[in-house]
């Protein structure tokens, strides 16, 4: 018996020495086999697989398309950022000369980039041509508009300083009222920021949901192959061996879901791009929607695959250990 043991050990040792490459080959071979086998199993049930892909695709596409929408809204608003300007409405009865003098004075201000004087006559003419109220305006006995000085601060002046400028200019004797055209832009920006956070939170929830969906799908796959798992364990299959095909199943579901998500986002963009461009052209802009692009789409597929692996891993580590030969 002792002899047997010794010879057995020797044999085992030499086996493991010579077969490291062999074991690596075997490991690689089983990865190949189980990935292909899992893929065939997924493709073998096209209806249920497509449904799973769609569920994951929609769950992923939702936050991604919201993010794309915000990204585009951000691009629109960023083109407006530089146009933050102050309108100084001058006191009634200020003469045009006095207004022009003030304009030159303001142009010397260190935080001011540009100043433009719009006389009340010019303003009326512009308003008449733009507003379409020409008839009504002609009937007015006198011009209701004041002189206006448009002040554009330097670009590196931050919003708080711009507000300070407004207060400073409003205190001037000739200025009746100073308005900051940036207030709404700030509101828009903080609204965008709020939306961005909401999308992030929503995305987090949905990603969690995707992991749970995938975990549950894999759990069902494990249940349906319970007998097979028992048999494989009986004839010496390790946990890693049993686990592998299920991890690949999760990967395929996740990757497919990512592809579907990318397709959904692409289709949505295509669906919206024509009306958006039309709307933009009405505003005299050549703005067009920008999608996640090829890299973004590939990332989506990658993220889908990773979520699939995570979901499968959770399901496998939770349920596979419980299946032992009895």
């Amino acid at each position: 018996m002792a002899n047997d043991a010794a010879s057995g050990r020797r044999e085992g040792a030499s086996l493991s020495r010579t077969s490291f490459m062999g074991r690596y080959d075997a490991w690689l071979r089983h990865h190949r086999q189980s990935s292909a086998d899992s893929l065939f199993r997924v493709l073998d049930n096209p209806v249920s697989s497509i449904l799973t892909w769609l569920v994951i695709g929609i769950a992923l596409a939702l936050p991604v398309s919201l993010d794309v929408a915000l990204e585009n809204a951000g691009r629109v608003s960023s083109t407006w950022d530089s146009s933050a300007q102050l309108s100084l409405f001058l006191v009634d009865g200020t003469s045009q000369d006095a207004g022009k003098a003030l304009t030159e004075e303001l142009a010397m201000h260190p935080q001011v980039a540009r100043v433009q004087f719009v006389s009340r006559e010019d303003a009326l003419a512009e308003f008449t041509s733009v507003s379409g109220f020409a008839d009504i305006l002609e009937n007015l006995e006198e011009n209701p508009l004041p002189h206006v000085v448009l002040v554009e601060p330097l670009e590196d002046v931050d919003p708080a300083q711009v507000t300070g400028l407004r207060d400073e200019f409003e205190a001037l004797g000739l200025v009746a009222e100073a308005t900051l055209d940036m207030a709404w832009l700030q509101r828009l920006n903080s609204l965008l920021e709020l939306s961005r956070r909401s999308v992030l939170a929503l995305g987090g929830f949905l990603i969690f949901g995707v992991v749970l969906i995938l975990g549950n799908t894999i759990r069902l796959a494990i249940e349906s192959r319970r007998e097979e798992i028992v048999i494989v364990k009986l004839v010496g299959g390790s946990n890693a061996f049993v686990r592998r095909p299920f991890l690949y199943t999760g990967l395929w579901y996740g990757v497919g879901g990512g592809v579907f998500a990318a397709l959904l986002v692409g289709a949505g963009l295509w669906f919206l791009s024509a009306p958006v461009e039309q709307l933009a052209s009405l505003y005299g802009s050549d703005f067009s929607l920008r999608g996640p692009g090829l890299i973004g789409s590939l990332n989506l597929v990658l993220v889908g695959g990773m979520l699939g692996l995570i979901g499968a891993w959770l399901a496998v580590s939770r349920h596979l250990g419980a299946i032992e030969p009895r």
Partner: protein
Amino acid sequence: MILFDRVSKRYEEGHDALREISIDIGRDEMVFLTGHSGAGKSTLLRLIMLMDRPTRGKLLVDGTDLAKVGSRAIPRHRREIGVVFQNHQLLFDRSVFDNVALPLVIAGYDQREVGRRVRAALDKVGLLARERALPITLSGGEQQRVGIARAVVGRPKILLADEPTGNLDPALSADVMQLFEEFNRVGVTVLIASHDLGLISQLHHRTITLRDGQLVTGTSA
């Protein structure tokens, strides 16, 4: 090859399946394990396969103390033992070939070697012509022989069988036993649990009888 040293197994509900069992089965031996159902035959086989662990006592297989085999090493331990199950334990959605190939795939043999060995094993049990068939289309005896082919395809040192002739008619049972004797002749240690006393008495091998978890005859040789 298999050494039980005062092994006891008590299940959690308090039932003593095995009590102070001491058996020594040598290399190249073929041994029958008999007794009524519930006498502890299956428990004994389960302990060798590490499906259960002894409550007390020492169990050595091929010189290895099974108490020292951790749960991560169980698969490797099982790969060195071929097992024939009473209910066959075949994969019914895979072909006969794939069923027999399973232990080799697990052990990581390359495809050509798998094909060669599987065909050799199927030839041995007379099922080479059925390699593409699904197990469900086979008779009970054929399914049992597929199970035997799977048990020996990895050329294990030990072959265990739990009621391998349980569902077979006498002629088929004799065939199956003859197969086991052939494997034993080429150096495989064979341990067969069976209550088919008629068949066992025709074959001249050592017989171990269990009753209520205790050894009746055939103490350590």
